[in-house]
């Protein structure tokens, strides 16, 4: 009988102990952040979508269009469109023909930077395999946490354009139009 009563008291006491914790934290300063008015402090180390690293010249990517990233990607979200060989002017063609006649090897004049670097963020799992496999370190994660869009196509990027926009070279829309994305990918 006495034991039962003591049990009841200790049971009730456990509730009081819990309430004491509640009271303590009720009076403590707030730990949450009123988000839209105040930014959270922990997003610096977050790794968002991919971006191209620019070479010395602003707006020109370091990328050499080797395609290792596209090969390594587990979800096939990268497509590197290489530049075509520029058509030689008559003088250049002549010089080349002369060089060939002398037995010299013609120099490869194809620009190395990609024409387009298509990136489908909807497929990307942010594993970083592409970055690790880039021989020149031309890819990096952005810290962008606030990326949002109205349609699927908003997440199809041409990273070359994005880089140019960042450098302020061209005011072209960064996202690739849906029909180009379909025909190139």
């Amino acid at each position, binding site marked *: 009988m006495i034991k039962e009563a003591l049990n009841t008291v200790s049971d009730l006491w*456990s509730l009081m102990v*819990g309430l004491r914790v509640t009271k303590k934290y009720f009076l403590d300063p707030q730990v949450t952040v009123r988000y839209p008015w105040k930014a959270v402090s*922990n997003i610096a180390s977050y790794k968002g979508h991919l971006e191209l690293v620019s070479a010395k010249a602003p707006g020109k990517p370091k990328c050499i269009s080797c395609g290792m990233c596209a090969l390594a990607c*587990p979800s096939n979200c990268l497509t590197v469109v290489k530049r075509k060989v520029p058509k030689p002017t008559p003088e250049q063609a002549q010089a080349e023909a002369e060089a060939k006649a002398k037995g010299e090897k013609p120099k490869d004049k194809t620009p190395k930077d990609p024409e387009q670097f298509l990136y489908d963020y909807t497929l990307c799992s942010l594993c970083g395999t592409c970055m690790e496999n880039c021989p020149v370190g031309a890819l990096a994660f952005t810290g962008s946490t606030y990326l949002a869009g109205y349609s699927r196509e908003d997440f199809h990027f041409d990273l070359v354009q994005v880089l140019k926009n960042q450098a302020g070279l061209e005011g072209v829309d960064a996202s690739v139009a849906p029909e180009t994305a379909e025909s190139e990918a």
Partner: protein
Amino acid sequence: MTTYQNNDHLAGDFYTQNFAKTAGEGNLILNLGPQHPSTHGVLRVVVELDGEYIMRAEPILGYLHRMHEKMAEVKTAAQFIPNMGRVDYGHALGWNWAFVGAAEKLGGIEVPERAEYIRVITCELNRIASHLLWWGAYLLDLGAFTPIMYAFDDREKVLDILQIPTGSRLTYSYYRIGGVAQDLNADCIRRIQEFIPWFRSRLPMYKDLVSDNIILRKRIEGIGAIEQDTCRRYGATGPVARGSGINYDVRRAQPYSVYPKLDFVVPTSDLKDARGRYDVRMIEMEQSLRIIEQALDMMPEGEVLVKGAPKPSWKVPAGETYFAVEGARGKIGAYVVSDGGKNIYRTKLRAPGFCNLSLFAEVSQGTILADAVAILGSLDLIIPEIDR
């Protein structure tokens, strides 16, 4: 005038109809829990009720089957690592480790010692985060709302720490074949060192707030007793087996990495009920802190990724192997068979949640419906992991 009314939707689907065939007369067939693709991690259990007592229960799986094992067959070993973070969102690094460990074992790759310690630290931090998620969600299931707020306060701190080296907060793909992707920087180590005493000071608060609370104790004490024999028959591992008094922890039973060098206790409980499993997890969090503390002290300087680490095009040498790690829910195993080709020939993933859930049908028999929820929660199920 007669109107045609289609009552097909009331008859239930295949599973319900099949289940109802053997139902006793006058018993109610009830579908517990929703299933919908947009609500991740929900479980459907069909139960046969006599009044409030469960006569029979059958978990229905497969709604979150994502073909991870099949996907392993069409990717190279290194390309499969991001998948492993998505098998179990609770303890993603444990799954990372199981697969990476199997590939390393088959390829005969030595992992640098610093990488091993980093793996131990991050894996244990992830275990704490997983147990905190379980703790909050379990109490939410039992009707207590505020504990999850306290749990997420601490869990946020762990996620902030893990975000520094991994770059993400939930589905990590951080381990690489032959090491880890990135070293822990000074900021990260400082945060871990600050976190350990902080979390130690929080654990007594958890005890005061919830563990000793009479309402919780009445809810979970003596509920869902699982005999050791049942655990063995179903292959239950992790806190479910340890809560029944089976001293089995992969970190001790099949030591891997640097765990033999670390001093920690494998907690077990003889209570066998939901309370036992609860206690085991609470002590495990303390032990994880101890492991992290030691690992931080013992961590040597050096490389974090072995030189000449496998590229994505790396072919796993022919052969077969099994590698198991201790996850937050139990033994995570990866069985890898390679024929030396570009892709792995076959990968079998052993999910602890599947075995732990299998128990439920037997254990819940004869209990009240409300207790069944307490039992189900105490098993710490992550549904994507069960279906894989």
